[in-house]
């Protein structure tokens, strides 16, 4: 009940937030004389391209799992049902699973367009006629790609597809980002004339993209051109029917052979361990070394993990790119002040990136033991030791990553040595707390039955981790903000800080330090207690 209330409440808030923000942005655009509508429709076009890309990517991962990797597939294929029917049932299930969230959060955007442009009933009738076929097309393209990929790649190594997909997503993200050219939207000076600027904004997207048909249908219905809207809706509907039939034909010929090959046992030979890694980690206690080596080997041999790495790399590249294009010199505010302000905000941003990475790898680390967790429970190693080993496994790489992030962005921002020092020290103290929260809460809310570790992240415990981690980062940043501002201004304007302010500064930093210590200790304690009290999995 509590889970439902938390998830439902957050979901509704987020939904309303999207509606309010979109509505306000559109109202603002309408006030821009001359090209307000152009901006609004450019935004709609971008939104639809993004939704379509998200739908395709999400459907690729879901259909691969539903059609080839689910545990129940052997039972399903043993039933006296035709392959096309099995495919159809699984594909529809995959379509619903992969698109419901995008649909739910696309609705407030479309509704705000309807309200802003005072659309008639035709527009609201067109919305579902656009969304449903768009989802079916995205899912249809994905299913076809997956079926063909399983035939092309060695089927026994189907999971390698994830790595391939990860790379594809990285490229897709990069191109989408570059195609949006967000910096030009706010920098008309880059264009020789306003006319060129408007012309650039008005450039239509490719007519071959289903998202363009969806855009045309929505735009025409917003303008009251029902007949034209019907034509573009018809394009979407006919394309979705065509893709469904094409996939059914494909499924009849290549789905089962691909599935059958996937089931064949994969034989991978591993070079006889020479003991090099053992010697290298010889300084560690035995149990620690056992878990470190196991964790490293499992990680590198599981290609499903790699796609996540690609995504994280894409996230970091975009993050760093944002800093490299900040037009600081054009700001009317003093550059030094702005650089340091950004550097301060950047600490929070870097910590949020760290939270996202910890959620994927740290939070799910206990759950990834899966049904083999009985090995840990029966071993002569306490749960306390086991969890602390996990903590120490994840701390060094994540600490290095967060420090590299903050140093690189600070260099791009050309901040003062004081801010460079403050941010690196803050991250040094923040990172262990975020990792401990991830490991501890992942142990408190484990999911040993999850087929994919990412499922653990989207659980109730995963959500709680994100909330607590965000609150922790926010609290530390707020505690530091006031004292840093005072120190900074005194340095800039050359005034002396009175004694009471020094007490306040030391107090704030001490409380931040205490919070950092509690953020390590409390979640780890909770994780240990709850994991010790839990029932073992996989050994009934």
């Amino acid at each position, binding site marked *: 009940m509590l889970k439902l209330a938390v998830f439902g409440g957050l979901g509704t808030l987020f939904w309303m937030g999207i509606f309010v923000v979109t509505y306000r942005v559109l109202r603002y655009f309408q006030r821009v004389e001359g090209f307000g509508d152009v901006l609004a429709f450019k935004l709609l076009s971008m939104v639809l391209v993004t939704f379509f890309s998200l739908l395709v990517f999400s459907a690729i991962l879901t259909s691969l799992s539903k059609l080839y990797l689910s545990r129940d597939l052997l039972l399903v294929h043993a039933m006296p049902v035709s392959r096309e029917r099995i495919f159809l049932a699984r594909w529809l299930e995959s379509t619903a699973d992969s698109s419901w969230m995008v649909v739910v959060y696309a609705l407030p955007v479309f509704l705000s367009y309807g309200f802003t442009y005072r659309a008639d009933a035709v527009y609201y009738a067109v919305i579902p006629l656009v969304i449903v076929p768009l989802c079916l097309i995205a899912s249809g393209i994905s299913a076809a790609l997956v079926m063909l990929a399983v035939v092309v790649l060695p089927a026994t190594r189907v999971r390698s597809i994830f790595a391939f997909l990860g790379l594809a997503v990285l490229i897709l993200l990069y191109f989408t980002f570059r195609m949006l050219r967000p910096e030009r939207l706010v920098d008309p000076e880059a264009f020789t004339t306003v006319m060129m600027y408007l012309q650039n904004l008005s450039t239509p997207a490719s007519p071959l993209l289903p998202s363009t048909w969806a855009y045309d249908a929505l735009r025409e219905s917003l303008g009251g051109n029902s007949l034209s809207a019907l034509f573009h809706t018809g394009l979407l509907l006919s394309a979705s029917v065509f893709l469904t039939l094409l996939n059914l034909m494909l499924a009849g010929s290549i789905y089962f052979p691909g599935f059958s090959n996937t089931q064949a*046992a*994969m*034989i991978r030979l591993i070079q006889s361990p020479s003991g090099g890694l053992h010697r290298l980690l010889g300084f560690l206690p*035995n*149990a620690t070394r056992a878990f470190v080596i196991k964790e490293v080997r499992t990680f590198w041999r599981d290609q499903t993990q790699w796609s996540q790495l690609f995504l994280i790399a894409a996230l970091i590249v975009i993050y760093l790119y944002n800093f490299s294009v900040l037009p600081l010199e054009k700001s009317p505010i003093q550059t030094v002040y702005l650089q340091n302000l950004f550097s301060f905000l950047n600490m929070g941003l870097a910590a949020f990136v760290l939270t996202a990475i910890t959620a994927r790898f740290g939070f799910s680390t206990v759950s990834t033991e899966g049904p083999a967790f009985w*090995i840990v429970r029966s071993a*002569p190693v*306490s749960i306390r030791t086991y969890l602390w080993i996990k903590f120490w496994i994840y701390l060094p790489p994540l600490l290095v990553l967060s420090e590299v992030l903050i140093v690189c962005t600070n260099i791009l921002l050309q901040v003062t040595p004081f801010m460079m020092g403050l941010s690196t020290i803050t991250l040094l103290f923040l990172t262990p707390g975020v990792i401990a929260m991830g490991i501890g809460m992942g142990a408190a809310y484990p999911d040993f039955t999850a087929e994919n570790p990412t499922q653990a992240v989207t659980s109730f415990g995963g959500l709680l981790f994100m909330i607590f981690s965000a609150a922790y980062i926010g609290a530390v940043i707020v505690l530091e903000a006031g004292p840093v501002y005072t120190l900074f201004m005194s340095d800039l304007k050359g005034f002396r800080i009175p004694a009471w302010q020094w007490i306040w500064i030391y107090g704030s930093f001490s409380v931040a330090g205490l919070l950092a210590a509690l953020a390590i200790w409390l979640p780890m304690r909770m994780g240990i207690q709850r994991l010790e009290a839990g029932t073992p999995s996989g*050994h009934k």
Partner: protein
Amino acid sequence: MIRLENISKHYGSTQAVRSLDLQVPQGELFGFLGPNGAGKTTTIRIIGGLIAPTTGRVFIDDIDMQREPERAKRCIGLIPDRPFLYEKLSGLEFMRFTADLYGVSGDGLVQRAERLLDFFGLLERSNELIESYSHGMKQRLIMASSLLHEPPLIVVDEPMVGLDPKGIKMVRELFRELVSGGTTIFMSTHTLKLAEDVCDRIGIINKGRLVATGSIAELKQAARVGDADLEEAFLRLTQEETFDAPGDYAN
């Protein structure tokens, strides 16, 4: 070697094990029999330190499992009924992982691991990832790894599930050999023939309660089945417990 004192285990309103008292001396092969859902696996989990009992105490070689779980677990080689392993490690790597976990080291470690893998017919495929092993191979790998640290006690749940006839014969002989060398084995099984052939003593559990313990002859005597086999004695002992109160079904 094993001492269970007044062990009970509740799962919510279900009582899986009720007031279980049991002692298994060193060097004995003790068979633990019972119908489905009788509480065998729960008892094995408690002995192996995978779960804590709701009440009562467990001693392994006089070490209190609650107070010194790591020390107690070091004395045990646990073989569960379902062979879930780290699929991305090879057989040999898993042996090495187990050795590290149990603090087994020394120059002869790899040779010892290879000898065990060879004994269980896994040496040729020891450099393959476990994910390509069959159910029976995984079961044999767990057996091999559980012997790596030479534990004085082996706790095994349904050892023959997934094994081929050759494997069953091998395990049967291995258990007798280990017991003759002083190792204690606590084995839960549904295979009454196996229990009859290899066990020194048998305990029968039904509805969480230990209904009888003793040698085969003593069990037959308790069940009043004369010269009939263990199956007859088992059915009688568990039936009496089940059907003594036919009203239970009506209610």
